[in-house]
């Protein structure tokens, strides 16, 4: 079957794009037509890569059509989308330093810390230095990436991919992690949490955003990863989108997480987490984290502290 990639896949276009990907169903041969693609977000790129690699793992044939007519083939190459999908092309351009602009699609492997350092260093150059003006942005990017990437690596049973971008005109930091694994609801069920069988995919996502709910189990997990990511989004008046199976949950600035219908009865086989933060909102990450923990009920005001030494 031939699937035409739509011209613009960002913000409101992402869910219809995922729905279109899901129309492939069980087709053995899939042709992706890139001729019309003009603009694409990191969330769409990682979802595309995770989906194509799932198809390839299932030994389906995937062809990339009309890349020579696509207006952003060079960008897809710079973002390593084609390389990750096994469809690499010769590069007729020079790769420049992407620091402060974007992080190409990366496979989330075991060394999440190292990838997190590279990703945060790219999105917030200089922030490695705790005294640097970009330090809080660095911390925000590192924290959100490591929590979502560890979820993809440890819970999904599939492969996870991450990418990020800084949009200077909008002043936004966009970070996305997608996996092609079992999805949030199924990971709850596989962990023996029988209540998950009665949940829809959307309700399972909401459960994952709630504090102290984990599919990984003790003693290593307290179930706060996605909770605090959503708390940080709330604190910074950012955006969060989580898609898993047929479930979609979105949080807009100033709002709460809410379940949305998947357009065209689509689904995403795996889990996609997309976050967008205003760069200016990351002024003091320690304060943001403290407030996110208070709001989530993970820290009580005036709680008994420990002994700290310089």
């Amino acid at each position, binding site marked *: 079957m031939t699937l035409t990639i739509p011209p613009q896949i960002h913000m409101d276009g992402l869910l219809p794009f995922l729905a279109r990907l899901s129309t492939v169903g069980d087709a053995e041969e899939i042709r992706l037509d890139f001729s019309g693609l003009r603009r694409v977000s990191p969330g769409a790129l990682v979802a595309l890569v995770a989906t194509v690699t799932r198809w390839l793992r299932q030994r389906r044939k995937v062809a990339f059509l009309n890349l020579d007519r696509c207006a952003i083939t060079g960008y897809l190459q710079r973002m390593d989308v084609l390389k990750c999908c096994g469809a690499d092309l010769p590069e007729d351009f020079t790769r420049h330093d992407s620091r402060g602009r974007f992080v190409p699609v990366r496979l989330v492997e075991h060394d999440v810390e190292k990838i997190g350092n590279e990703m945060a260093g790219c999105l917030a150059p200089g922030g490695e230095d705790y005294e640097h003006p970009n330090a809080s942005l660095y911390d925000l990017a590192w924290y959100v990436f490591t929590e979502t990437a*560890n979820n993809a690596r440890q819970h999904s049973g599939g492969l996870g991919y991450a990418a990020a971008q800084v949009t200077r005109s909008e002043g936004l930091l966009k970070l996305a992690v997608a996996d092609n694994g079992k999805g949030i609801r199924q990971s709850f069920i596989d962990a023996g949490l029988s209540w998950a069988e009665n949940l829809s995919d959307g309700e399972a996502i909401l459960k994952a955003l709630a504090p102290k709910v984990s599919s*990984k189990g003790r003693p290593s997990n307290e179930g706060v990863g996605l909770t605090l990511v959503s708390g940080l989004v709330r604190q910074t008046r950012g955006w969060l989108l989580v898609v898993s199976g047929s479930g979609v949950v979105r949080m807009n600035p100033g709002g709460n997480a809410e379940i949305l219908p998947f357009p065209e009865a689509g689904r995403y086989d795996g889990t996609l987490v997309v976050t967008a933060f205003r760069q200016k909102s990351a002024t003091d990450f320690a304060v943001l984290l403290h407030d996110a923990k208070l709001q989530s009920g993970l820290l009580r005001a005036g709680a*008994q502290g420990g002994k700290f030494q310089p």
Partner: protein
Amino acid sequence: MKLELNLAEEFGSSLSDGSVAAEFRMGRIDPYAGICSQIVLDFTGVRSANSSFINALVAGFMEQHGPKVLDQLVFKGCNPVIRVLVESAISLGLEKHAQVA
């Protein structure tokens, strides 16, 4: 007897994997809770950490041993973000300990 553990020497400057932290706590900290008068967790040189790691390290210890170990525990060299993570892990661990007790 004093037990001092330098996290940067053990794991480097970035700490994110809760399963690694839990394994470290069970093998290297829990056995000394009743033996050492002071346990120092030294975060000097640690640039970044997340809740998954610090909760597995600290909340699990507090949950298992309760508020009495707060007198033994010292957190050294924490940057402001790590301090928030540690304080919240203590709170979480004590809350869980109280639920079990």
